[in-house]
């Protein structure tokens, strides 16, 4: 039923896209993009979610760019029919920005955009830009892990190094998987729940805007960087015992990273001090303590066209005794958290087959998340993908354990133009 309706939508979107291309090309601005269908199903029956599907959607992405002398303008929008959560047609502006340079030294990028920095492979310390974990778990393309935000980015280049500042006037939180599509462990009920929950954003004001900075310099082939962030926890990890509502507590981050090539591969190191601004003494039970985090990674080509990497991330909660003393409930976190990840990916048959396997395993939390995919490029335009997401955990409240009922398999077909 879902599938049939979506195929019709796909056909319609495709026709629209072809006619749009012709219309706009006449004015000299080419339009590109893709039409994509995604279908996913659950592997576990006892899930409290309403649908057995994790995805049934058709998506049309249109892209256009224009390069004038003074600025480069780019826009990218998605039009989609999502049967699981939205239950209908919707659209999203993924990017719409202007890029220009002042005095040959300062690059500006203004508007809706996707931002990335830091060194980790799918784990983030100083990358404070919005992520979309619902898309990530549902089998959308990797590009959808990054959510857009409306921001002003400026980058100043000098012989001393490169200074980048990103100002996001309206706080852009992560998109959590708790939209009704996936179940999660709810500490409130002490059980798995699937109700979508929306958490109010901090009031719109200058004080509540986000500011992120990075200073980067390359020394002897090694990219060294310092980071700073003033904003909020990107997930609603705070809990207000008066209103009985989750919220976004304030957060400052100070970090550093290094990345370079060595040993026939690439290695990276990154660290950060997460300063929980609303609970500086670590005594408020509804607000996470400050913590320090570090990660180290190495990637190498292990055979022709096969690349493997390994990462280790460690996190230490500061003022743990106070945390223990003020803890409400039984879901006690550990003082130390560790995470090991490994990705192996290969490109075969002249890059027409791409296989990828990515495992996240936390020895301290005793949980894991495994994602895998196989892409088959039938032609330059047509790609078919199958993949899956597997979660497991011994405890219900850990990062991956809380999603343990959401194992899914998906198939995706993309026609690019």
């Amino acid at each position, binding site marked *: 039923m879902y599938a049939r309706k979506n195929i019709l939508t796909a056909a319609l979107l495709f026709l629209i896209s072809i006619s749009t291309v012709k219309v706009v090309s006449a004015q000299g601005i080419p339009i590109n993009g893709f039409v994509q269908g995604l279908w996913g199903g659950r592997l576990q029956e006892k899930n409290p979610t309403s649908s057995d599907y994790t995805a049934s959607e058709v998506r049309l992405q249109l892209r256009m760019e224009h390069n004038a002398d003074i600025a480069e303008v780019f826009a990218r929008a998605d039009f989609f029919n999502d049967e699981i959560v939205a239950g209908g047609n919707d659209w999203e502006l993924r990017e719409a920005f202007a890029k220009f340079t002042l005095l040959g030294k300062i690059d500006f990028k203004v508007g809706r955009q*996707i931002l990335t920095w830091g060194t980790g492979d799918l784990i983030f310390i100083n990358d404070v830009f919005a992520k979309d974990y619902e898309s990530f778990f549902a089998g959308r393309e990797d590009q959808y892990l990054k959510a857009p935000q409306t921001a002003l980015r400026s980058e100043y280049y000098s012989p001393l190094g490169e200074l980048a500042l990103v100002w996001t006037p309206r706080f852009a939180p992560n998109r959590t998987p708790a939209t009704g599509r996936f179940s999660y462990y709810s500490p409130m009920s002490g059980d798995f729940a699937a109700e979508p929950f929306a958490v109010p954003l901090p009031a719109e004001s200058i004080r509540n805007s986000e500011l992120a900075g990075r200073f980067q310099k390359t020394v002897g082939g090694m990219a060294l960087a310092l980071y700073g962030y003033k904003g909020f926890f990107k997930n609603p990890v705070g809990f207000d015992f008066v209103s009985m509502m989750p919220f976004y507590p304030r957060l400052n981050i100070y970090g550093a990273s290094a990345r370079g090539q060595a040993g026939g591969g690439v290695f990276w190191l990154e660290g950060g001090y997460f300063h929980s601004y609303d609970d500086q003494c670590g005594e408020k039970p509804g607000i996470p303590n400050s913590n320090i985090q570090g990660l180290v990674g190495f990637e190498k080509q292990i055979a022709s066209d096969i690349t493997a990497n390994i990462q280790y991330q460690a996190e230490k909660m500061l003022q743990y005794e106070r945390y223990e003393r003020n803890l409400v409930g039984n879901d006690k976190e550990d003082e130390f958290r560790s995470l090991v990840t490994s990705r192996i990916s290969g490109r075969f048959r002249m890059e027409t087959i791409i296989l990828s396997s990515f495992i996240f395993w936390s020895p301290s939390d005793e949980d894991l998340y495994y994602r895998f995919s196989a892409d088959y490029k039938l032609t330059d335009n047509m790609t078919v993908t199958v993949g899956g997401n597997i979660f497991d955990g011994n405890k219900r409240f850990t990062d991956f354990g809380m999603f343990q009922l959401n194992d899914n398999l998906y198939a995706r077909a993309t026609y690019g133009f």
Partner: protein
Amino acid sequence: MKTKISRTLGTVAIATLLALSANAQDAVEIAKKAHLNYYYAANDGLAEVSMKIVDSKGNERNRRFSMLRMDEADGGDQKYYTYFYEPSDVQRMTFMVHKSAAGNDKRWIYVPAVDLIKPIAADDKNSSFVGSDFTYEDVSGRLWTEDNHTLTGETRLNDRDVFILESKPIKPYKGFSRRVSYIDKELYLPLKEEYYDAKDKLERVLTAEKIETIDNIPTVTERKMQNMQKNRYTVVSFNSIKYNLGVKADLFTERYLKTPPREYIK
């Protein structure tokens, strides 16, 4: 009598040695000259590249990109910048190589859809370049100092006089066990190269399909790489070639990986 024979033999031996070393010397000179003409033309260069990949069933795939190159020194380090137009899934992607004559090359890719700059862990120069029959090394060249060269003869090819040069890797090498090059005597450009595998079976054949003179520089503007064992091939054509643009080194940095230099890349 005895001394005369030994003297004659000695002279012959010395002459042979001289001839051999002269031959080796010539061979190295030819290999070097051809390499510099082929991979280090002018100080920098820009081209729009179209690539057609045809598999054994006749299925065709196409890539289109702009490629900008800058040489630090002839036969030395080079920098490459590539901007993709097609196919759709790699559109706007950029790719950068800092080729090191002495050590390992460094490669970066920029994925605009996620604003991600990623250094590529790749010490394998024999990986396929964007799914084609060309390897990374075929694109940026293998230094003549990495092989022993022998001049094995001369012949005519495509109505041109050519040297026949045989090159064998000094260190054991995955890419080929032996390469036979047919180098144009006048232009010092390879018109044909045959790559033999570890079992000395012909694996790939590179041919210069079209040579044009651009800014007084003879340039191979269409190249074909055939994989004889897999019965497939890739044709690359270079269009709108420009030389000596005065490209600056700071263009080959992360800044321009994110923001393509529009004076060169349309």
